[in-house]
Every structure is written in structure tokens, then in C-alpha cells.
């Protein structure tokens, strides 16, 4: 460790030259969710509490199926980026890496499961 120069030790600890891109992709994602979330609230909300038959029939229609699938996918990608910043703010060292990996897995698992379930009913 003592053989590393200060500059070398700092490399990768601060700006990794992707901060702007992260911020921008979160911004683009947010504008998309701004449209999707209200649509999702009222489509999902209108079918929550109905019978199994009604629910599967509802998601057999393309519009609610697409709204739900898109919202779950981009919502979970939004969560993935957001929770990463949370972890980077409060968790340090090796635990940080573990938490980021775990939350990445959770985000993708929920996103894929949700889209899979919707597609299964839609197709």
C-alpha cells in the first residue's frame, strides 16, 4: 500500500467519470415514470381486489399489461439506481459492495418476475 502514490490511491475513489451519466439516466427514467406512475396507479388500483378471473382477463388486454410491465421494469431500474446512492451514502467498505450487489439482484429479480407474470397473463 505504501508503494502507491497518493494519486494512484485516489483513482476510482472519487469521480469515476460516470456521475453525469448516472444523473442523466436517472433524469430520463424519471420523466418516463412521471407518465407511467399515474397510469399504473389507476390501472392497477382498478383491478386490485377483484376476482382471479377478472384480474387475468384484465391483464389479457394490451394497454394495462404494457403499462404494468413498463412501470415495473423502469420502476425497479429507478429503485436500483436510487438505492445504490443510498448505500453509497451510508454504508462503507466491503459491506457497501455486498449491499449494492444484493440490491442489484433484488431489483432485477423483481423487475423480471413482474414482467414475466404480466406477459404470462397477456399472451
Amino acid at each position, binding site marked *: 500500500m505504501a508503494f502507491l502514490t497518493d494519486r494512484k490511491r485516489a483513482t476510482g475513489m472519487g469521480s469515476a467519470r460516470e456521475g453525469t451519466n448516472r444523473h442523466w439516466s436517472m433524469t430520463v427514467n424519471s420523466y418516463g415514470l412521471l407518465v407511467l*406512475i399515474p397510469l399504473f396507479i389507476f390501472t392497477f388500483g382498478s383491478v386490485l381486489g377483484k376476482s382471479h378471473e377478472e384480474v387475468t382477463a384484465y391483464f389479457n388486454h394490451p394497454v394495462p399489461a404494457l403499462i404494468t410491465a413498463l412501470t415495473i421494469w423502469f420502476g425497479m431500474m429507478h429503485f436500483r439506481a436510487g438505492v445504490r446512492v*443510498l448505500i453509497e451514502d451510508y454504508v462503507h467498505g466491503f459491506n457497501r459492495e455486498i449491499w449494492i450487489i444484493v440490491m442489484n439482484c433484488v431489483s432485477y429479480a*423483481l423487475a423480471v418476475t413482474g414482467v414475466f*407474470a404480466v406477459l404470462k397473463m397477456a399472451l
Partner: protein
Amino acid sequence: MADVNRGNRPLSPHISIYRFQLPAITSILTRITGNALLVGAFLVVWWLLAAATSEHYFALVNGLITSWFGDLVMLGSLWALWYHLLAGVRHLIWDQGKGLEMKTAEKLGWAVVIGSVVLTLVTVVVLNGGM
């Protein structure tokens, strides 16, 4: 230089000495609601998976999500979703370099808090009236 001890220096007090203010509260609530929505997202995905799997499985998850406790979680998630959306809009406005003056920021904060409650109530009324 990088090995200088940074741990034992006296630090100037920051968050702990200030009275909690609206911008601080609304800011941390954005983070809390956003991350807490994982619970709601999990329930929604589980419910969809159950619906796609079988009637029996659906009855179990649907019973859970529409129980009084499930209703409570869903209502909380609904508010969190509206709150996070409005607070997100505030961030998008701030990103344009607008609304950063103290007075405007304060107003935007109240708009987020009050707006989220109003939108939650409107949603509940609309969805229950439509049934």
C-alpha cells in the same frame, strides 16, 4: 498526505445543531419513501405472479394484500408513490436551475406535502367510487 489521521479532529457541528426545517424533512422523506416503496413493489409483483400462476395461489396472496394490514401497506405505498413523484418533480424543476430561492423552495415543499395527501385521497375516492 492521504494517511493523515482524519478521525480525531474536532468537527464543526452540522445537522445536529439545526432546527429541523421543511426542506430538510421533505428531502429525507423523498429518500425514505423511495426506498420504502420496495415493500409495495414486492407485494405488487408477488400478487401479479400469483395471479399468473393459479387461482389457489392468487387466493392466498390476494387475501394477504387485501387484508386490513395489506390495505394499510397499500395505502401507505400509494401516498409514498405520490409523495416521491411530486418530490421528484421538484428535483426536476431544481435541475433546471429554477425554484431554488428559499421562499420558492419552501412553497414547493408544502406543495409536495399537501399535494401528496390530496392526490392520495383523490385516488382512494376515485378508485372506490369506480368499483
